[in-house]
């Protein structure tokens, strides 16, 4: 294979994987605290539409990105309120959020253009590629890794920072404690409610950032259903990565690679493996991984599956 082609495939893989990393790491924080947020797809798409709308009107990439982060946090706080404070069913609440987000994003996409016109087809600001001096010249890996947009570089930072936060700080310990055994955490004086709120809202902000990468960098612009199910892939990814940010990065590259390959296969007109079969892989792999970590539960403990995932907490009630 030609080197140039390999570089371009790697570059696209990272591009395609970036939003998945943000979304998956956001979900990892949420789930580690014991909250399952199936509203990810809704948050991602709302992040994308708000980033593009704000970016388009203010012509500021920074404001657009901030808007996505704020909207992501706000939507996640609805889920936090319903599932943490009101102890509503997390599955249903998350699905409601997805439904709501997809509906609202489509509505906004048709209203937020200039003078109430649709956003579809408009050209707004976008993050362009920036080559990092020296590093970007390293053959192959450097050329692919360090010839990316700003949000991808932010993604590179997000992974080690969130891993550090999760495993090496008080905050991370609290998050994990609350997701593992809220009773004990509560007895130790950790506020279960506050920690879960923080993790859910913080996670939502990261998901919003993932949406911003989609509409401001990966596929600049707004089209209805822009996320195309990436939110669900990210949820799969969290399990695939067994709730670990670093493995989520690896998984996102594999899933992003599959995604990128899919387009190439379609362009090439089929090939040996039909594109649809390739696209199934992430979902099937997730079921396999989930089965394995369930069967080998001792492994799953070590890998960090949160024991209290999806369970509401009420002091003194079991």
């Amino acid at each position, binding site marked *: 294979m030609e080197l140039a082609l390999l570089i371009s495939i790697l570059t696209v893989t990272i591009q395609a994987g970036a939003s998945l990393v943000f979304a998956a790491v956001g979900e990892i924080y949420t789930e580690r605290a014991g909250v*399952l947020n*199936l509203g990810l797809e*809704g948050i991602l798409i709302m992040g994308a539409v708000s980033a593009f709308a704000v970016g388009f009107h203010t012509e500021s990439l920074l404001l657009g990105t901030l808007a996505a982060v704020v909207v992501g946090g706000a939507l996640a706080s*609805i889920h936090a309120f*319903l599932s943490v404070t*009101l*102890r*509503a*069913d997390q*599955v*249903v*609440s998350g*699905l*409601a*959020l*997805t*439904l*709501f*987000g*997809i*509906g*609202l*994003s*489509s*509505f*906004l*996409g*048709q*209203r*937020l253009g200039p003078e*109430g016109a649709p956003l579809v087809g408009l050209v707004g600001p976008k993050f362009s590629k920036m080559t990092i001096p020296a590093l970007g010249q390293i053959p192959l890996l450097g050329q692919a890794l360090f010839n990316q947009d700003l949000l991808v570089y932010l993604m590179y930072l997000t992974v080690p920072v969130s891993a550090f936060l999760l495993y090496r700080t*008080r905050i991370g310990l609290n998050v994990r404690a609350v997701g593992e055994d809220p009773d004990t955490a509560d007895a130790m*004086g950790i*506020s279960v409610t506050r920690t879960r709120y923080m993790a859910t809202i913080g996670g939502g902000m990261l998901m919003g950032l993932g949406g911003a990468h989609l509409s401001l960098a990966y596929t600049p612009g707004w089209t209805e259903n822009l996320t195309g*199910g990436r939110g*669900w892939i990210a*949820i*799969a990814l969290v*399990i695939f990565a067994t709730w670990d940010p670093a493995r989520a990065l690896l998984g996102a590259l594999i899933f992003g690679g599959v995604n990128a390959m899919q387009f190439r296969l379609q362009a090439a007109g089929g090939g040996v493996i*039909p594109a*649809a*079969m390739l*696209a*199934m892989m992430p*979902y*099937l792999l*997730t*079921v396999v991984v*989930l*089965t394995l970590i*369930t*069967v080998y539960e001792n492994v799953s403990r070590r890998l960090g599956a949160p024991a209290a995932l*999806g369970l509401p907490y*009420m002091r003194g*009630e079991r």
Partner: protein
Amino acid sequence: MQLILERRLSRPRHVEFLFPLIALGLALIFSGILLWIFGANPFETYAAMATGAFGQRYHISETLLRAIPLMLTGLAVGIAFRMLFWNIGAEGQFVWGIIAATWVALFLPELIGGMPQWTFLPAMIVAAFVAGAIWGLIPAFLKTALGVNEIITTLMFNYVALLWMQYLYTGSWKDPEGFGFPGSAQFPEHAWLPRLPIDLGRVHYGLVIAVLAAFLLWLVLDRTKWGLEIKVIGKNPLAARYAGMSIARNVLLVMFVSGGIAGLAGFSQVAGVAHRLQNGIAVGDGFTAIIVAWLAKLNPWAILLVSLLLAGLSTGGDQLQITMGLPAAVAGVLQGSILFFVLGADVFINYRLRVIRTQPRPAANPAPASGGPTPAD
């Protein structure tokens, strides 16, 4: 002062009926505000939606048509939820019903050297039920045999099924005479689910299947020993186990029925409406079904009613595009917010809010101040 939730000792009847209604009202107000912020008149929008859903005979029949798959998938999800098996996979089971029905209508006759015309529909029904059931049984088996979380497996299986269907209608089942249009050949007419013999537009016998399914489920759940077992397992699995009930066996049985009914929904959509395998048959009804079942509190009759309501939102939303130039997606916003508020209201059916006046804490035990370091750090 502190607000706490306190479990209600008794559930007053009026609370159970009143709160969902209040929630519905609040959802309308909340969505109305959103509409207003973004420059649409909420009153006109709601009026246009109501007319679009139930205004004329044509609208009513379209709403009924739209409700059929929601009713069936809603019933499917409802029975699984009754015993706390979180079947998020109705969409995938629905898709397998579509695929199986298509296979029988287009490919089985050739394989076995011809089938009498009257056998087509019964064979399609059986195939769709079985295919949906099998797709539902895989996660059920993973759950009962290995303890694998069914929320994730059923969810993931939706996408596998959807991609499989996409592969079929764009690939090996694509109509060779279809001018490159992605979709299978059209079913022969004796494989079409007929329309109802009354003047109700495109409404087909799927409606009868749905009502029949609701009746049977109600009968089974409310009037048989098995129904009681399901109820007990859903309410208190531990007690059920002590009473000698096999949870695993019941999960498998229930998921066989649940997947099967979702498969029937797929059959009724492909044989009653599309008449061929193509894009746009599976539009997320299996997901909406979860909302239907939840809003209906898993009661089969209520599921039929709620399906009508949500179908009305959907057809009303479609009409918005035509009459007011507003996106049909408003329906999704409304559905989502109704669910938010009903979920919120549910809590106040089981709990009540109490205000407690607390004394200021003694200085020796300061409340952890936000921002400032606590002794634990």
